[in-house]
């Protein structure tokens, strides 16, 4: 059943608070740089910004361990960075350089990274959910205690794949953590204009999946709720579902004049910006000094500048290699020892 999150506000310690703050700031500044580079035509294609939603990726990743799997969407710069993919590899990917985390083949919407078990930005809405079910199934069959965290927007709940995947995960009690980032608009379509039932947790409950809403603008609340859910999933409690209530401050992508929402609404949500909110919280607990902020900004700026430099210095994959990676290189067969030694 849908549960209300009645927990008290989580406590905060200084070091942890600053860590969260810095991770959110890294995402924000990386993406602001992306806008600049897009305008300068260094980055092309579609770029979907996560600005405003950073608390979710940062808080949620802390509930996961390196063995866990992550499936994300095309709005995944924040998830990749928070998961530990380097800003260098992400920026080089956006440039389309071979040093990118997907060798430049994917771009902004398709960040992949085997080392951090980051199974990609999937740009078909709802298309990643069945994959997450499968990753969970493989872990269950192999007896591994991993969690597969699957991020998707509220727009995905209109897709058949959402319902099919929720049912399969629940039916087979798979270790999947469904992380729904409800930013209220599927591109330009407000939830109430596309769903007869706008309570998303109820949809998960219909599949007997424990589900609860989370304030997606509060990184501490995200961390706490996600940890609680991940612990339950890891313990064999079957799939869990979190609805992070959030808002995207920027346009859907670079080609969006935002005719579908009120500027006042955007301004209201900006008051709940997760970054200043966390600063405020630290201040309330006397854990704040202005010079920390200055130093943090400088450090993040250095990281992002270095990433841009890295991407600029990167290489274009030779056109002769165009048809690589359509099929696996036979010499690199990771495949199936069908004559196992056992």
């Amino acid at each position: 059943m849908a549960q209300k999150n009645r927990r008290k506000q989580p406590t905060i310690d200084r070091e942890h608070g600053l860590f969260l703050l810095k991770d959110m700031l890294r995402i924000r500044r990386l993406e602001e740089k992306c806008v600049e580079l897009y305008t300068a035509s260094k980055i092309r294609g579609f770029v979907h910004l996560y600005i405003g939603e950073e608390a979710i990726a940062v808080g949620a990743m802390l509930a996961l361990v390196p063995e866990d799997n992550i499936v994300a969407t095309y709005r995944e710069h924040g998830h990749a960075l928070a998961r530990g993919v380097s800003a260098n590899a992400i920026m080089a990917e956006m440039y389309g350089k071979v040093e990118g985390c997907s060798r430049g083949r994917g771009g902004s919407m398709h960040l992949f990274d085997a080392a951090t078990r980051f199974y990609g930005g999937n740009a078909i809405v709802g298309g990643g959910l069945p994959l997450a079910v499968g990753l969970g199934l493989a872990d269950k069959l192999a007896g591994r205690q991993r969690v597969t965290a699957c991020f998707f927007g509220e727009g995905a709940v209109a897709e058949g794949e959402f319902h099919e995947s929720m049912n399969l995960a629940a039916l087979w009690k798979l270790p999947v953590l469904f992380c729904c980032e409800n930013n209220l608009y599927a591109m330009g379509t407000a939830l109430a204009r596309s769903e007869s039932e706008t309570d998303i947790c109820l949809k998960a409950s219909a599949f007997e999946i424990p589900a609860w809403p989370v304030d997606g603008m509060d990184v501490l609340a995200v961390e706490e709720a996600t940890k609680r859910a991940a612990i339950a999933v890891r313990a064999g409690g079957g799939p869990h579902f979190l609805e992070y209530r959030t808002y995207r401050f920027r346009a859907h992508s670079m080609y969006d004049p935002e005719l579908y929402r009120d500027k006042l609404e955007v301004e209201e949500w900006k008051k709940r910006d997760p970054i200043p909110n966390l600063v405020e919280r630290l201040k309330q607990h006397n854990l704040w000094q202005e010079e920390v902020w200055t130093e943090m900004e400088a450090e993040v700026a250095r990281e992002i500048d270095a990433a841009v430099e890295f991407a600029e210095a990167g290489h274009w994959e030779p056109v002769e290699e165009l048809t690589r990676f359509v099929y696996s290189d036979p010499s690199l067969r990771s495949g199936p020892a069908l004559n196992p030694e056992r």
Partner: protein
Amino acid sequence: MRAAIRDALLRDERVFLMGEDVGRYGGCFAVSKGLLDEFGPERIRDTPLSESAFVGAGIGAAMGGARPIVEIMTVNFSLLALDQIVNNAATILHMSGGQFNIPLVIRMTTGAGRQLAAQHSHSLEGWYAHIPGIKVLTPATLEDARGMLWTALEDPDPVLIFENGLLYNMEGELAGDAGPVEIFQAAIRRPGKQISLFTYGGTLFKTLQAAEELAREQIDAEVVDLRTLRPLDTATIVDSVKRTHRALIVDEGWKTGSISAEIMARIMENAFYELDAPVARVCSAEVPMPYPKHLEDAAIPQTPGIVAAARRVVTGHE
């Protein structure tokens, strides 16, 4: 097929079979009968009617280290999973810059001939052959039905196997040690000198029969079983045309925008000056498959039509 699946389950504990009614029911063509008792419900996994989710789950499980065999009842139902097959299975290796391969096998039945009408009888394997990133196998013989599954499971990338429904009931003796087979080469099932008949899957035996009838008319036909539609073995096709100088393609798919058109194009590109006559085709009529037997028979390639078309190519008249 059952022997092939059983072999695979015995050989590798990462292999599991998943699909609608593969367990309790025994498979809708009884292909997996008895496997549930032997291997249990974790590895003989019944799924809900959710093609997109269970095909996608097969892709995810393959990325997660398993070796799934996903069964889809018919090619028409596979269209419900087209997003997962085309947008994920075929692309993830590429989009990830070679980091994540998808060692997945998807089996499905294809073809007409059982009066199952227009939503269970089409031959869309040629359509799938359009997609880079997947392999398309079309076994027609018992050896291939058994051996191709083995080879497909050894492949690091997604492999689709299209099994013609009429071939399930074909009987024959298989050597006890029948093993994996090579999948990238077309096979010359009957050598001949005057015309090359290119076909695969459900129409192979009709074409072989046509070749026998042509022999009685002193027309010596070569029958090439394509076996795999992607990658297509252009070299064997071209070599055959260079020997016979005439070609006829027999395909249960429709003509327009089809694998038969692709084969013709490759012959034009690679062997145009070898030809003594225009290349011809025998394909399905361009209609959704009708239910009544006489109309279904008329809609798909049949031996007399193949004989007549081949005769026309060789002699210039009916």
